[in-house]
């Protein structure tokens, strides 16, 4: 009995914030007839994807008890460099590759500083956030860089659809699925949880803690780069000011999705749900046509409420 009981309980627990999401969807559909229209759903999903992809990378970092404040600046760095390369006529494939590698590089610098240098993640990634912004600004001389002709060639990334589903959404889904598989079904993924749970114990279990920590930041950088490339395709310019405050929103998605900032607990599915919650709130408030200032008040309140409902439920079970 006890096992079955545990199981259903775990399932319900897994539902947790997912239940809040469903509640939110029901309410949204009630207050705005347009909400459930296909167009709007597609829209909404595309909007979520941009920061959602970053949030998946952030999930890895936070699960391993880290934090990455530099993602927004990474987006800017990748965006301006790639815009520049595009405008100089470098082949699309090569630019995309360089973009992704740049993201991984920035992440790796974080990883080195934290895993090898022993610098607290908050400080390391804050430093890189500030410095990265400076690099993007210097590189672009403070100006947006247009990708020029290349906009046609990479338009598919930001604007294309496959079977009616926008490419950014597909990319987001792929990132979620890969993230899910890695975390649940690979030794690396379990090591991420182990490191976040108890670093010392993980080390004593023979896990290369430094390597795991390092890798999570590289993954986060990679995800930021993916977002940068999608943005580049959508906006056709690389802005050195792109991605400001993305770190906060991405962390919010992760945390609302139930991942603990103290490491070891959480999942990418949770993050996807967190991203949806944040996305829906903005979308529906815009649909209903509420004054933007009032929107902020309501948005803040709903975020608190959503997590409160979840916290209540979880607690009352104990």
């Amino acid at each position, binding site marked *: 009995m006890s096992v079955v009981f545990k199981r259903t309980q775990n399932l319900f627990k897994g539902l947790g914030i997912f239940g809040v999401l469903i509640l939110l969807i029901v309410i949204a559909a009630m207050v705005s007839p347009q909400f459930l229209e296909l167009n709007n759903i597609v829209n909404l999903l595309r909007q979520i994807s941009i920061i959602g992809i970053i949030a998946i990378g952030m999930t890895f970092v936070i699960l391993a008890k880290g934090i990455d404040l530099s993602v927004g600046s990474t987006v800017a760095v990748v965006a301006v460099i790639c815009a520049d390369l595009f405008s100089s006529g470098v082949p699309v494939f090569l630019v995309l590759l360089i973009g992704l590698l740049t993201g991984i590089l920035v992440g790796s610098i974080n990883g080195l500083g934290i895993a090898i240098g022993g610098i607290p993640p908050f400080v390391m990634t804050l430093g890189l956030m500030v410095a990265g912004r400076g690099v993007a600004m210097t590189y672009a001389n403070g100006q947006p860089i247009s990708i020029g002709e290349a906009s046609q060639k990479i338009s598919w990334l930001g604007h294309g659809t496959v079977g009616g589903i926008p490419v950014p959404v597909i990319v987001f889904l792929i990132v979620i699925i890969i993230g899910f598989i890695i975390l649940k079904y690979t030794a690396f993924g379990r090591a991420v949880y182990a490191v976040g749970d108890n670093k010392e114990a993980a080390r004593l279990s023979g896990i290369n803690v430094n390597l795991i920590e390092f890798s999570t930041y590289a993954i986060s950088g990679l995800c930021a780069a993916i977002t940068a490339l999608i943005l580049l395709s959508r906006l056709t310019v690389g802005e050195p000011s792109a991605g*400001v405050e993305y770190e906060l929103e991405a962390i919010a998605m992760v945390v609302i999705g139930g991942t603990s900032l103290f490491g070891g607990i959480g999942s990418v599915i949770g993050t996807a749900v967190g991203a949806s919650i944040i996305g829906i709130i903005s979308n529906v408030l815009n649909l209903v046509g509420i004054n933007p200032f009032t929107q902020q008040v309501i948005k803040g309140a709903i975020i608190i409420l959503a997590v409160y409902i979840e916290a209540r439920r979880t607690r009352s079970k104990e």
Partner: protein
Amino acid sequence: GNEDGGSDNENDGDFKVGFSQATLNHPFRVAMVEDFEEYLNENHPDVEFLLTDGEDNASTQVSDIETLVSQGVDILVVSPHSSDALTPIIAEVMEKGIPVITVDRTVNTEVTAHVGADNKEIGQTFGEYIADQVDGEGNIIEIQGTAGSSATIERSEGFREAIEGTDIELIAEQHADYLREPAMSFMEDMLQRFSDTDSIQAIYAHNDEMGLGALDAIKASGREGEIKVFSIDGQNNAFESVDNGGLAAVAIYPHGGTEAAEIAMKVLEGEDVDEEYILEFNIVDETNVEEFLGTGI
């Protein structure tokens, strides 16, 4: 499906106007929206008005526009965060047959109408004026807005073109995000760095808030007789400051909210409109400040 224009005697109540503002974190932007809405409320109270806040982020603004379109707006008014970034989405909206009016900042694609002043031109004209005020020579510090924003870029570019070839030297620059406090702190540092008397002749601030912040720092150091402060936008408190002998001059940067609303209604009612509506701007200094007191934002 968009019901293209509508018939002549259509009621206002059938119209839905969407306004995508780049950010509301700035008085100038707020004033634009407010005047727009006020015009509608007074003249077309039944028109439905939808407003979104792009949170100073091009990609958010693109999303906002997508949302507004999916809500079926009959006309889209956009004050773009930056020109290039908003171009593709606006082209898309125009293709769908929804008229688009851009305010303040242009995009690189055809739109129904554009309303606004030209930041670069203001920078340049004001720059020439400032050069004149310091007799074509001396040291100037530029306090810029948010790094990378197009207003910042253009106000800076125009200004630099104006002082090129003069004996004016730009001795320092910094971004103060259009906010008063960072401008004040920066100015304090500059007053340390250039502590010799007459080592600074003027401050060129990209907006009034920053200009006023710099002015406060200068006053606190007791060097207000020595350094002239110039700023852009035209807030009421900036005019008052000019009147009290604080700021040397303010360039009014018209936001065009009211004009945009007028044009939008004309478009909806099927009237012809000009493609471009360039707003006049003024420079307010002690000679003419009285006519402007209380008219600002």
